[in-house]
């Protein structure tokens, strides 16, 4: 099953600053269906972490339940991970991040996990501006239970066996914007050139970075009539803003056309350079983000970095937590001791 190790193919792959190859950022072999969009996202994670030169053991992977949530075992085999219960990944991430903000938190969820059973936790993690990258691998369908609609299924979309969805969908991008998320992006599992830099930018963002990744389910939702199929997504896919992540102390080498590039310094290091493919959109403008989504509704799927705000305090700052992680403070500093207790007792006498 998922503990099967992948064979070592090439010892001469390029090494990053940690002396590690991309293979060092992989996990156990995937057990998802051949062609699953989620496996492409897993590969994008591997590439992003490798390119960021992150120490694998300084990342923590957190997920819920479902096909998407299984994937945390398929990358970063040298990182700790916790595969929690259905829809409850954000709460576990919240506690973990509160006591050790120094790790890179990667949450992997699906449309069922985040938009149905876990909608409440997703919403409240956004409100807390929890410092994590939160990726929704969105296929519009429940795969493990064989093809029921999820809450992200569009009106009129057709299920494998003919049923048509008539309920209004929950769009995680618009929902996240409404709730005040500080980094909102959408991408497509089939476009690694867009997705990898977004993952890097999301990891370096200080606050809650959500990326909704359309990720077709080849078994239950890749047919004609589905709005989450490869064919449909390729056809209506509309890149709006391309985000390049430029690590700290690295020269920006890409030649951007004047007036097209916006450089945003990231709180956790490095810069994000945004290239507008849609000239009218400024991702630092929340109202513009709403307008963009509204204007393209029903015709095209806007992708890229839709909105970013690097200025908002994250959960740690709002709670005035110290630089030394709470899980590393000496007991002597935490326990007030016997003399103090004697003094406290006077207040109850």
């Amino acid at each position, binding site marked *: 099953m998922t503990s099967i190790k992948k064979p070592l193919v090439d010892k001469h792959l390029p090494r990053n600053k940690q002396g590690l190859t991309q293979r060092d950022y992989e996990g156990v072999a995937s057990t998802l269906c051949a062609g699953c969009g989620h496996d492409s996202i897993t590969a994008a994670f591997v590439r992003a972490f490798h390119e960021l030169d992150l120490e694998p053991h300084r990342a923590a992977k957190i997920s819920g339940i479902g096909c998407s949530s299984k994937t945390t075992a398929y990358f970063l085999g040298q990182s700790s991970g916790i595969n*929690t219960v259905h829809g409850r990944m954000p709460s576990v991430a919240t506690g973990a991040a509160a006591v050790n903000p120094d790790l890179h938190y990667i949450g992997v969820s699906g449309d069922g996990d985040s938009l149905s059973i876990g909608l409440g936790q997703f919403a409240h993690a956004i409100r807390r501006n929890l410092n994590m990258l939160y990726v929704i691998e969105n296929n519009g369908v429940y795969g493990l239970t064989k093809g029921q609609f999820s809450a992200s299924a569009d009106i009129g979309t057709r299920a494998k066996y003919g049923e048509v969805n008539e309920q209004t969908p929950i769009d995680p991008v618009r929902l996240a914007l409404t709730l005040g998320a500080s980094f909102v992006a959408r991408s497509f599992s089939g476009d690694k050139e867009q997705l990898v830099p977004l993952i890097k930018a999301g990891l370096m963002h200080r606050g809650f970075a959500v990326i909704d990744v359309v990720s077709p389910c080849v078994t239950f939702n890749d047919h004609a009539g589905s709005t989450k199929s490869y064919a449909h997504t390729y056809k209506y896919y509309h890149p709006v803003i391309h985000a390049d992540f430029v690590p700290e102390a690295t020269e920006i080498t890409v030649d951007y056309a004047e007036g097209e590039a916006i450089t945003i310094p990231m709180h956790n290091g490095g810069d994000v350079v945004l290239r507008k493919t849609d000239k009218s959109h400024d991702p630092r403008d929340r109202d513009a983000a709403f307008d963009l989504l509204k204007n393209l509704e029903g015709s095209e799927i806007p992708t890229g970095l839709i909105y970013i705000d690097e200025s908002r305090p994250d959960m740690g700052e709002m709670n005035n937590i110290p630089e030394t992680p709470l899980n590393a403070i000496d007991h002597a500093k935490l326990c007030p001791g016997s003399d103090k207790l004697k003094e406290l*007792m006077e207040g109850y006498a």
Partner: protein
Amino acid sequence: MNVQTQTDTTESTAVKVNDFVIKIGNVNGTGSASANGLLMKSIFRMGVPVVGKNLFPSNIQGLPTWYEIRVSKDGWTARSGNIDLMVAMNLESYEQDLKAVSPGGTLLYDSTWPRPKLHGRDDISVIGVPLAKMTNTEFSNARTRVLMKNMAYVGAVAALTGIDMTVIQSLVEDTFKAKPKLIEPNMKALMLGHDYITEHYSALPLRVEPMDETKDCILIEGNDAAALGCVYAGATFGAWYPITPSTSLMDGFKSHCQALRVDEENGKNNYCIIQAEDELSAIGMVIGANWNGARSFTPTSGPGISLMSEFIGFAYYAEVPLVLFDIQRVGPSTGMPTRTQQGDILLAAYASHGDTKHIILFPADPKECFELSVDAFDAAERYQTPVFVLSDLDIGMNEWMVPRFEWDDSRQPDRGKVLNAEQLEKIDKFYRYLDVDGDGIPYRTIPGEHPKGAFFTRGSGHTKFGGYTEDSAAYQEVLDRILQKWKNSADQLPAPIVNMCGQATKRAIITVGGCAAAVREAISRMAENDLKFDYLRVKAFPFHSDIEAFMENYDEVFVVEQNRDGQLRQLLINETNVPKHKLIPILDYSGMPAGTGLIARMITDYCQAEA
């Protein structure tokens, strides 16, 4: 003015010194809690053992609320069952309050308004004090008038029972240290009530006389004590969703942390409290924090445990330590949120689907809330499992008189088997669920500590090496080890408290938690009638081996607890070899703090029916 003449009853000639009960019936939201607390504490400050029970509604303003103060020179802390002086301030509950007074007792009421059923009883004395009239004359602000009416009855009760006004005055000064302007009006109101009594009535045959029995004690609520325990245990993270009666635990943790945990050097909080969106999230946060190696906890009540059950099973199976405080209230469902019960014993013991068994610690008073909360963090990390501290509303939200807490500075937290970076560097390979030492407890690591310590935590089937499995034998091996680990904890957890009556008897009483105060007094009362019982109080689950051995010595074991179904009894039957017929259920699930009178009567009736 409608002043009633004091009825001269023959009973009233026997003076009760430091051994009586005052009950105050009032309207919720009128600020009576602070006046009542002041009254109780002044008795405590006179060196006289005392306890207060707040019997309040699930309401912000308007419904009836009561406060019962038991003055007990012998130090009994349960409700005795008698009411010697009733202060009936609430018209709505007046009839009920009138009925509740014990024969020979006294009822004090606000005679500003005449009451038609005043003469409903001729076996008690009735005292009228025009409280509203006096305070309305003296004070102009509407809210102040309401508050001062309460202070006025405190003054009246003080005059009637001989409570030292200088003690009350010093308490008022302590209370309003930060707002000295309030001292004068409060004292004025107190004196209005006091002076009216001294002018119109003679003192009651209920006397508070100074003793020297409280100097080593404090008055504290169990939730506050548990919160202090969390601070001393080194907990740095707490997540919660507000629910009565557990809310004051997190309030207490917050205020203790604000006083004790703000870093002097950088002004940062060496703690973090997150108010979650619901209990499902609260426990998820606590799991995340504990997974990351910080001691963390969540306080809740029964409905919260129901919601948390899925995650409790996850933490049990994935072996994530955590501490849950269940401040029990009356169920099922919403039940009676402001009433007390011990209805979550079975829920806590086996919470979550599948085969799960948990460690439970049962405090019986606020001092044990402090001590057992520290023990709970140690047990959770030693056994890498959820640990419940099963308190209740009576312990958690009432002020109990208990010995002052102590702390041993040499005590270090038992973090259990955690491999640090240095140890990980030396080992060949780390497997999270491997029973290296043969005691059922594997080693764990803190994420991010060292590359070799990385592991994948999952609630799905896993092998002892931590990998996913659907293999029967590999699954069973892990599940069996977790059971062994739990069983091994039994004799390491706090041992039961045993009191032998000193005579040969074939009868014993077993109880748990806050019932203990009433049971111990009931045993003492029944001994006067030649009914002798040995006594055992359970402090932890899984049951210590001493408990089964104890039960073997008796023909009859009365199991006293506060729920309908005899949950402790069921658990004893399920988890020991005691014959079912030996265990006789004695149940009080009224929602009120356990009363000595009721328990003594139920057991006595059973014994007499037998004889």
